[in-house]
Each structure stands twice: as C-alpha cells, then as structure tokens.
C-alpha cells in the first residue's frame, strides 16, 4: 500500500510518500489513520486532530469509513485551498 502526504501533513511526518503493509485488521481510512499514528511522533502529530485531515483513495476523495486494500494509493492532506 502506497501512502502519500501533502502540505503540512507531509511536513509534520517528514515524508512525501511511504510504502506500508498495515495488518489485516486495518480495513478503512479511520483504521489506517489510527495505525499510522503509532509509527512516529511526526505521524502522531500530523494525525492528532483528525478533523483537519482529508483523505483520498486511488485519487478520489474518501471518507473515514472508506475501505482500504493492499494495492491502493492512499493520500492524506489538509482541506484543499486552490483556486
């Protein structure tokens, strides 16, 4: 599973991208956030306030209950500010 980070999520984690293999009980975005938060203090800081984080699964916006699977491309980022 490939995970991408953008904007201040990327800065707090200190990585733009990582390849991970979460345990099988991680089935959705919410579960993945909980599991990622344990990986480093940076991860914990980035995901500390889940309300300020948005996610995408395979390049489509996804809610916390969206399923995640081994081959997916997952991304975490702040609310978007384009335009």
């Amino acid at each position, binding site marked *: 599973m490939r995970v991408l980070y953008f904007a201040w999520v990327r800065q707090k984690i200190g990585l733009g991208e990582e390849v991970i293999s979460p345990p099988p009980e991680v089935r959705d975005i919410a579960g993945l956030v909980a599991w990622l938060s344990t990986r480093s203090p940076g991860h914990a800081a980035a995901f500390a306030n889940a309300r300020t984080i948005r996610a995408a699964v395979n390049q489509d916006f996804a809610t916390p209950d969206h399923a995640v699977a081994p081959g997916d491309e997952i991304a975490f980022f702040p609310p*978007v500010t384009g335009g």
Partner: protein
Amino acid sequence: MITPTIRVQEAGFDLGVESARLTAGRQDIGGLASFVGLCRADDGLAALVLEHYPGMTEAAIGRIAAEACARWPLSGCTVIHRIGRIAPGEPIVLVLTASSHRAASLEACAFLIDWLKTGAPFWKREEFADGTSRWVEAKAADDAATARWAGSVL
C-alpha cells in the same frame, strides 16, 4: 459534448491567448465568460507556493469540468491552474467558459471557480518578506460558495 482543456502548470498563462484559442474560427459562441484569480500582496506577502497532488489534480478538475458541461450547454471550457512559486500580481488560475448564451457561460464560470476552490487537491503556502511561512487555511466561505451548486454528483 465538448472536451474541456485542462492544464496544471508552473508557467504563467495569457487570458487573451487562451480566449482567442477557444473562440478561433467559431461563429456559434454568443458569450465568453472568464475568471482569473491573482496573487494579492496582502500583509507583506512575498510569494504563494502552490503544491498539488499530481494525477488526482487533473482527474478532479476533469470531473468538475465534465459536471459543468453536463449542467450547461458549453461550446468551450478551459481551466488552467498554476503550481509552484507565484509572485504578487501574477495569475494563479484561469476559468474560461463559452456558450451560445451569456447566462450559461457566466454561471458555468462561477460554478467552476467555486468548485476548484473546494474540490481540487491544491494547497497554498504563503511566504512573507520576513522569512516566515504559513499554510493557507480552508475557508468556510468557500464551502458555502460551493454548496450553492447543490445536487452535484462530484
């Protein structure tokens, strides 16, 4: 159904060139609406730095543009969004919509810029003259503007 022109690029763009490209040789366009978002020099801003999610950005803008084409009878649609470092006074984003009638072009243009603000994965960081930097926070007003176009399947 037309094919929208969508570009995500570091380079600047020219409203005159893009509008001429959209209308060249056409005699069926009655209204051409455009919106250009520019970088303001607020509070000592030295530059905006725009980050995006390559791949998803183009897909998201493509879905928003397709939705605009489904809602309004557009005869042309161009969306250009810059990334990277942008100085005050420079353009950031261009939306250009053409239709046989003015209302369709104006409404589709407003729809597209409202949606781009909330539905495409761009993030702005402000760099100030004093060397500090901060990420721009999403505005509730932008969500409200997008919500005006209720019923979207996006």
